């Protein structure tokens, strides 16, 4: 960073020598928004926000970078921040927000938060990511949870299955499907999908307390425990129910298999519901949403947030307007109905939601109250990206047979996590 300092000094000198920097005349009434929500439903939902802001006189400057769960967008964001030219706000996930906050790159919207009393309505666990040292610097848009299974109702009826309540029942159900000649489990074989599924498997196998101990506290004995081994074994069992071509498949293609009835079930976060809706399928009638067997009552969450960057004073008003609009009850409801997730504030009425949405909202409230509301390891909500990346590595290697036994899987997991810490 040395040369940057030097060059900056040069710039500073140049400006000091010649001209006193004149203040910008008026407030910049644009909201520059970096995000990767480029598909129909999400874009439509964001358009609501855009419209809300337009009513208040703020223009929306769209900066979409699609793909890779925001990988491209995160790179662009890093470049923008490094250039000292951050967007007004950016869609951001989990610990990435913490990183930017700790680096002092985020702004302060505490005044608005206090006024609106967000601390009361946003689940406490989420506030870990939206506040830093008590200061609000990001707003949550939604709460996703990853411990869902999505089932094609017609197929379930055809094979004569019922809702599985435990992991063993789940396996039995998958067996039934297999016997009936249906692909039991639709899976996209990409590291993050496998890891996301493993989140649920661990919570199901060891219970939510075990999950917390292992992934939130990174307790080594838990990571090495037989329960963790059993979780890996359970994951291995699930692999037997996939079709042979699962590797590298995008998650929405897997969802499509369920929608079309080619496959019975997909283990996926509630964003999968958006796919069903886009295919004009109705919750409860065409498809069913259950908690991952053995995890009912717990919510393994991830959340989309808008991080509010440290912008010059003239862009501050627009930023606050964006934050305010994002947190409005109407937007939270409208957006999450489309997105499949549940509102990030718990005082949003569930009237507009379908049965899955209603269940989701209720689950979040209950889990938040019971302390069963935990961040997803796979989605960077339990640990920073380095550890989550190590977790992805081990799970995907195990799932694809590079790591052969659950014994070595737990050893590798501990080793990889320690190396990444």
């Amino acid at each position, binding site marked *: *960073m040395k*040369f940057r300092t030097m060059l900056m000094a040069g710039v500073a000198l140049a400006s000091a020598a010649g001209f006193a920097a004149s203040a910008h005349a008026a407030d910049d009434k644009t909201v520059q928004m970096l995000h990767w929500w480029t598909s129909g439903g999400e874009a439509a939902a964001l358009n609501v926000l855009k419209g809300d802001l337009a009513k208040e006189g703020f223009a929306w400057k769209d900066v979409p970078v699609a793909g*890779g769960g925001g*990988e491209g967008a*995160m*790179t662009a964001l*890093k470049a923008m921040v*490094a250039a000292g030219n951050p967007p007004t706000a950016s869609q951001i996930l989990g*610990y*990435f927000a913490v*990183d*930017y906050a700790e*680096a002092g790159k985020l702004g302060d919207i505490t005044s608005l938060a206090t006024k609106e009393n967000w601390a009361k309505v946003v689940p406490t666990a989420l506030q870990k990511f939206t506040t830093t040292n008590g200061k609000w610097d990001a707003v949550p848009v939604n709460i996703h949870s990853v411990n869902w299974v999505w089932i094609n109702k017609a197929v379930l009826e055809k094979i004569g299955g019922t809702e599985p309540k435990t992991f063993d029942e789940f396996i039995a159900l998958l067996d039934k499907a297999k016997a009936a000649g249906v692909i039991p489990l639709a899976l*996209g*074989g*990409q*590291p*993050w999908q*496998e890891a996301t599924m493993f989140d649920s498997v661990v919570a199901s196998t060891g219970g939510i307390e075990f999950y917390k101990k292992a992934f939130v506290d990174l307790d080594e004995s838990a990571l090495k425990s037989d329960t963790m081994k059993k979780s890996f074994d359970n994951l291995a069992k699930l692999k037997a129910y996939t*079709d*042979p*071509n*699962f*590797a*590298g*498949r*995008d998650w929405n293609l897997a969802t499509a298999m369920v929608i079309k009835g080619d496959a019975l079930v997909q283990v996926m976060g509630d964003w999968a519901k958006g796919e069903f809706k886009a295919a004009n399928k109705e919750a409860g009638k065409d498809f069913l949403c259950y908690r991952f067997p053995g995890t009912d009552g717990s919510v393994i969450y991830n959340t989309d947030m808008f991080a509010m960057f440290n912008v010059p004073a003239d862009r501050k008003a627009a930023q606050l307007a964006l934050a305010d609009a994002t947190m409005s009850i109407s937007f939270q409801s409208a957006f999450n109905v489309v997105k499949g997730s549940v509102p990030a504030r718990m005082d949003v009425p569930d009237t507009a939601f379908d049965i899955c949405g209603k269940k989701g909202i209720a689950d979040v409230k209950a889990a938040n109250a019971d302390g069963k509301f935990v961040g997803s390891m796979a989605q960077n909500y339990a640990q*920073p*990206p*380095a550890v*989550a*990346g190590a977790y992805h*590595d081990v799970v*995907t*290697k195990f*799932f*694809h*047979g*590079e*790591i*052969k036994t659950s014994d*070595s899987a737990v050893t*590798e997991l501990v080793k990889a996590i320690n*190396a*990444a810490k």
Partner: protein
Amino acid sequence: MTEITVAPLADVTMPRPRGSVRGRLQDALPKLVLAPSFAAILLFVYGFILWTFYLSFTNSKAFANDHLVGLSNYQKLWTWTFETDPPSGWYTAIINMGLFGGLYVVCCLALGLTLAILLDQKIRGEGFLRPIYLYPLALSFIVTGTAWKLFLDPGIGLEKAVHDLGWTSFSFDWVVNPRMMIYCVAIAGIWASSGFVMALFLAGLRGIDGEILKAAQIDGASGFMMYRRIIIPIMRPVFFSALIILTHLAIKSYDLVLSVTGKNPGGAAELPSTFMYSYTFTRNQMAVGSASAIIMLMAIAAIMVPYLYSELREKSQ
């Protein structure tokens, strides 16, 4: 021809008018013209390499920082280099670079040369065929990768098509088999770049002095011998150009890997470029990413510098 066989330092060394400012300016003009480009390269390439080098000794995570930690990032990579069971991401990246890079470069050269030789046999419709081999280069690696991923997908692509034709035992599932995936990346890469190599070789073939070929024919060289002993050796400079271009494409083939494999399942399609990218940008271990970038550059330098050196030297002698 020129008299002096010893390489002169300069082809044209102009007299230097002493004293006059104008004269000196004239004298320095060529260097002044080159200077901006060279300065840009120095800053934007070598400056950045230095910066990366510096970062590789820090514990930079999401952002660059100045906290020096010595060689620990390199130590990490060094340990990973020997972790083969299960393979560490870095080990896989190195192995894959060898596999992919080797296959990609060798097959592109072989296929390019073959196509060029075939096309050079006074082919009717050459003007029609040539763009067919050349066009894949016009597509970006992302498009290439996506097309090949679909094309090779056993469920909807080639395998299914062959099954539909009636050959149901046909199996080609490399693109979903983590162990074989890297070969699919190579196939897509070869498809994309071999046409360009073909063009290079075709140009090389067309540039060979006809008299040399006549002489070889009179000497009794048959078609195959003629290519093996005369034509291919003459085209050494073409190999040089092709190799430089292919190597740089192989090193940078980041988009291709991710789009063909679908985000690298099982970590099996890791390449140094994907490794570096993911550590720098998605795993927020910038220092490790930087160290891997430095190692990658040193490896390239170890291979390319002697080669560049000998080729550049030889030519001017």
